[in-house]
């Protein structure tokens, strides 16, 4: 056999071997994109905020693809609409795993929906960054595969009561929508008020759709609290502000968790939105790595300002990418171990978790709507404006 023949045979043999190896592990084909699956609340009461989160994810994927993807493969994002319903999300994540054969998954919008899909992730053994599940009760012993990618719900509006108390506020009313996230926040703020020695003069929970906010507002008006804290999502955040105005009551401090940060909030309320306090896990002037570029790229891609939901979605992609590149693998167990052991710098701050997947690195700052625009009012070193009180309510 001549050397030429030998070379030809070797070339054939190696070609066939490569072909067989691709056929044996079709998921590893270099030209096939890495499929990342998630659901988002494109419809339903969470749609306004979930859109920002999804946009953040899309930007993260776009940026990764512009740099060649992960492990030399492009990324493809597969999104289904969970209609803001936990049951629908469980069905769709099952579909992503069993039918779409997603390589990687990212969590949905909201704590309640994540709470529903978290057991599925533990069962199917998918290491999932949860960008919008702030309630700590998901990340408890027994949870191995869900990683909190956002500040805990216990920290929402946490900074307000000490500040108000320092400025002489003594009484508080706390309202909470009946959902996993808002109820966790509701309980935490009541407990915090009591620890600070402030009197909780009114507290109630309510459900969507469209409860009679007028009666709650009237009851709060009669209780005359200095601070009103609403553990809300967008629709009830708007409804409560309108109801307070209708009953002619403007508390000195009026704060709501989710809602005021959405651009639609100011559009729906006009001047009534001025003075409303809320919170954010990210702001455009944060000194975190990549924050400036994130803001610029997001604005260019979506023609809107990003908010902390966008930062959380964007951060989840970055964290997942770091884990894939760090392990040089799509192996879920390797990714899980890596996520437990490593810290990833994100625009929200450092992603790091404890043994149960609970976030240890993120925090919340306060924002306030002033002259129709959101202004960061804490922490002091980054604040764009001073907190204005009392809430004008007109």
């Amino acid at each position, binding site marked *: 056999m001549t050397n030429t023949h030998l070379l030809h045979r070797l070339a054939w043999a190696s070609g066939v071997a490569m072909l067989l190896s691709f056929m044996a592990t079709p998921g590893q084909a270099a030209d096939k994109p890495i499929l990342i699956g998630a659901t988002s609340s*494109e*419809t*339903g*009461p969470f*749609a*306004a905020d979930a859109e920002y989160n999804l946009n953040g994810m899309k930007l993260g994927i776009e940026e990764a693809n512009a740099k060649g993807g992960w492990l030399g493969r492009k990324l493809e994002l597969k999104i289904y609409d969970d*209609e803001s319903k936990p049951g629908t999300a469980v069905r769709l994540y099952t579909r992503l795993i069993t039918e779409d054969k997603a390589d990687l998954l990212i969590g949905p919008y909201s704590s309640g929906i994540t709470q529903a899909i978290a057991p599925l992730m533990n069962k199917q053994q998918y290491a999932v960054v949860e960008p919008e599940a702030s309630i700590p009760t998901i990340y408890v012993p027994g949870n191995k595969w869900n990683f909190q990618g956002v500040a805990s719900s216990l920290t929402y509006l946490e900074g307000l009561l000490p500040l108000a108390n320092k400025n002489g506020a003594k009484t508080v009313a706390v*309202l909470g929508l*009946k959902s996993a996230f808002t109820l966790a926040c509701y309980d935490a703020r009541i407990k915090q008020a009591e620890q600070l020695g402030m009197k909780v003069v009114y507290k*109630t*929970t*309510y*459900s969507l*759709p*469209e*409860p*009679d*906010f*007028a*009666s*709650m507002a*009237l*009851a709060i008006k*009669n209780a005359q609290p200095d601070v009103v804290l609403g553990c809300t999502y*967008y*629709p009830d955040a*708007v*409804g409560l502000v*309108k109801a307070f*105005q*209708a*009953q*002619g009551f403007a508390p000195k401090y009026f704060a709501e968790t989710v809602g005021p940060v959405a651009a*639609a909030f100011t*559009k*729906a*309320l*006009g*001047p*009534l939105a001025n003075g409303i306090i809320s919170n954010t896990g990210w702001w455009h002037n944060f000194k975190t790595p990549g924050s400036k570029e994130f803001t610029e790229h997001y604005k260019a891609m979506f023609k809107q300002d990003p908010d902390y939901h966008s930062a959380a979605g964007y951060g989840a992609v970055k964290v997942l990418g770091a884990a894939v590149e760090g392990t040089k693998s799509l192996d879920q167990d390797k990714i899980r171990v890596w996520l437990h052991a490593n810290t990833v710098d994100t625009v929200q701050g450092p992603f790091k978790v404890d043994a149960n997947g609970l976030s240890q690195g993120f925090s919340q700052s306060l924002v306030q709507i002033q002259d129709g625009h959101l202004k960061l009012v804490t922490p002091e070193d980054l604040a764009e404006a001073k907190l204005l009180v009392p809430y004008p309510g*007109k």
Partner: protein
Amino acid sequence: MLAVQLLINGILLGGTYVLIAQSLNLIFGVMRVVNLAHGSFIVMAGLFTFWLSARTGLSPLIVLPIVFVVSFVVGALLQPVLIEPLMNQGRRAELLSLMVTFGLDYVLVQIALHVWGADYVSLPYLQSTWTFGAITLSKALVVVGLFAVGIVALLYFGLNYTSFGKALLAASQSPVGAACCGINVRRVRLFAFALGIALASSAGTLLIMILPMAAESADNLTILAFVIVALGGLGEYAGVTIAAFLLGLAQSLAGYFLGGDAANVLPFVILIAVMLLWPQGLRRAA
């Protein structure tokens, strides 16, 4: 003073409920059709009003007659195609109409989602109050309540004191008898459906001033309207008005004394109680 404020809140809430419910009731009364697309007409009108007002700066009260006329025409176009063919189906008509209007509801919600998106919206209109001593009246709530009651009052007088209204009532009580008296029942049904849709749409234009609303609110509004109509008695105009105001008052009191959860669940508790005690509705029980 607290009692007066609670009473006013309840009446104003009841005023909006009257308009939401009477339009459903009108269609049922004349055609025995429970319009499951009721809420989606309310929502479409609300979202359209928001869209038009936000773009043109037009007051929603100016948009109101536009919405009324457009939705009347839409109703008049839909009725011969979707509802009228069911009318000669005998006993099957009610079940078939449920299926047809359920399908219509789905189509309308999808159109609303496609055109206006899924976000909750609300118009910042008349956001100030009148204060009389300890009593506070939201201008938006008062205007919405007055318009709602005014529209329903016009409906009441139209039904009872005009020849066409009397024909409509006659057709709802006995279609065969009305036809024997020379009433064009087919035309009456067309008019009633179109008017019902126009009234539901008017409710949407008014509600967007006081409530955040999204495409997905449609089903909840249909259920609310159905609860009120069931309380008042299907086809009973006075009974439904009374039920709407009673429910508004009850929710106002429950919300104040028992909190938001109680106010939410109350309509259904009352409905179950009334169905057990007076299954024919409040009006016929009185």
